[in-house]
């Protein structure tokens, strides 16, 4: 379906995280969240980052997005260092209720990034806004305000707003962690469909290992802080994926086994199973 060997462009990886450390100091002590993360991401990949809570996976994503500076190390996008939010990337926040602008209608929220990212004639902005509202199936809700929509619909507005800028990379921070299970399945399918249709590169932070395996072409597990990459797993499951049959594949279960064993042993939790059947 997609060829992940187009990863390297001119010898340098598409996204490169090199020796990224992050420490916070405050209240008289220093917390080391990230302890030297190394990660290379090829174009078109769907990479999920999992790890125990507090391992700094959201922080890593914010550093990749250029929203937060690293204490040490660097992030390169197409061999250019990321120092501020690059125009090719958009960050989708976990807290959609706080990330959407409550004083803007759905339409104005979706066109917000578009209006600021590029100089386009109003008619083109309107057309693109309509197109992306349609893509997340919110036609008819253009003039609604965020607070008039359900949680799942609000997150779809946030996704449409991000995609309307036609980014090459989408950075998603636990985007489905506060919606109910069925809405979540719908949003997972939406993101998979958009990833395939638009040829996006997605970096997806989640605490849900099953969600990570189901969605991704690769899953990266971070350890306890100061975190480093503890496991890097290529997910070779067939596309298009299916919420029921994909999750029943022996391969899927094997990936699940590997990931959970890693996470549990890092946390000192015994699972009773032998690690790494592979």
């Amino acid at each position: 379906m997609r060829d992940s060997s187009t990863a390297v462009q001119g010898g340098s990886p598409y996204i490169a995280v090199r020796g990224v450390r992050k420490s916070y100091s405050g209240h008289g002590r220093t917390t080391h969240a990230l302890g030297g993360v190394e990660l290379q991401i090829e174009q078109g990949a769907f990479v999920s980052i999992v790890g125990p809570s507090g391992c700094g996976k959201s922080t890593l994503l914010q550093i990749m997005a250029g929203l937060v500076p690293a204490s040490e190390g660097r992030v390169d996008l197409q061999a250019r260092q990321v120092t501020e939010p690059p125009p090719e990337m958009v960050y989708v926040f976990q807290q959609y209720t706080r990330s959407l602008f409550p004083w803007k209608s759905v339409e104005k929220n979706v066109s917000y990034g578009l209006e600021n990212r590029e100089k386009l004639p109003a008619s083109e902005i309107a057309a693109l806004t309509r197109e992306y509202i349609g893509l997340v199936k919110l036609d008819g809700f253009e003039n609604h305000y965020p607070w008039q929509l359900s949680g799942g619909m609000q997150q779809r507005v946030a996704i449409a707003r991000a995609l309307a800028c036609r980014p090459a990379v989408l950075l998603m921070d636990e985007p489905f962690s506060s919606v109910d299970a069925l809405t979540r399945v719908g949003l997972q399918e939406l993101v998979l469909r958009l990833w395939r249709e638009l040829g996006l590169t997605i970096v997806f932070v989640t605490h849900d290992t099953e969600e990570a395996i189901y969605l991704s072409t690769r899953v990266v597990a971070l350890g306890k802080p100061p975190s480093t990459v503890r496991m890097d797993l290529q997910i070779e499951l067939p596309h298009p994926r299916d919420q029921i049959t994909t999750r029943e594949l022996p391969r899927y279960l094997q990936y699940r086994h590997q990931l959970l064993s890693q996470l549990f042993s890092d946390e000192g939790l015994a699972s009773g199973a032998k690690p790494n059947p592979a």
Partner: protein
Amino acid sequence: MKNFARRLAMGPWLGIALIVFLLVLWQLAAELKWVSPLSLPSVTSVLATLWDLLLSGELLKELASSLWRMFAGYFIGGALGVLLGLLMASFRPVYNLLEPITEILRPIPSPAYVPIAILFLGIDDEMKIFMVAFASFFPVLLNTYSGVRSVDPVQMQTARTFGVKGAKILWQVVLPSAAPSIFTGMRVSLAVALIVMVISEMVAASNGIGYFVLAAQRGFKTREMFAGIITLAVLGYCLNRIFLAIESRVLAWHRGATQQQKN
């Protein structure tokens, strides 16, 4: 009959009935000379005087000069309050610079500044505009400050991920987000502006509604005096109504959003 009483008690008419009752009491007190007619003219005579003053244009002329001073001061004070509130909330050094002096100046009652204002600005419009501006400034400043401080950092991060930075974030995110708070300050200041306008005109002026009321009292023209006070009551009521109408139009999103949260 019982039904009628209940309906009266539950509806808006109860409050209006109280006002009518008090006006009738006033009328009786004047007619039956419970109070010296020199101090308390009858309601009907006051209303007749008010009507004459309106027709002759005299009252409107006084009102016009008062309103000009009040709004000039209100908008100057309000604009400075928003500007400095924004700066204090956004830049720590500005806050450190201005916070102590605002805390010292703010508790002093505005009328206490009148003597200083007269010394430096005389008794013309400048003095009154300054007084109103000064008094309107603080409520707007404090509410803008706290409104800007409580802007959700996620909203600012959102603007940044779409490549928005600097002053544009202030304009696109911080101001709209702090608008409900700013409006609260503006509403408090509107009431304060009316009070300070009347006071400054009573202290030193040759026209304006405050001057008119005080001059009428000194000349024992109590009907004119009451007519002026009624005018002020109507003015205050109308200003507040207009303000609320503007606010509910500008902040329609906010009312909806907060009602949603309560449910």
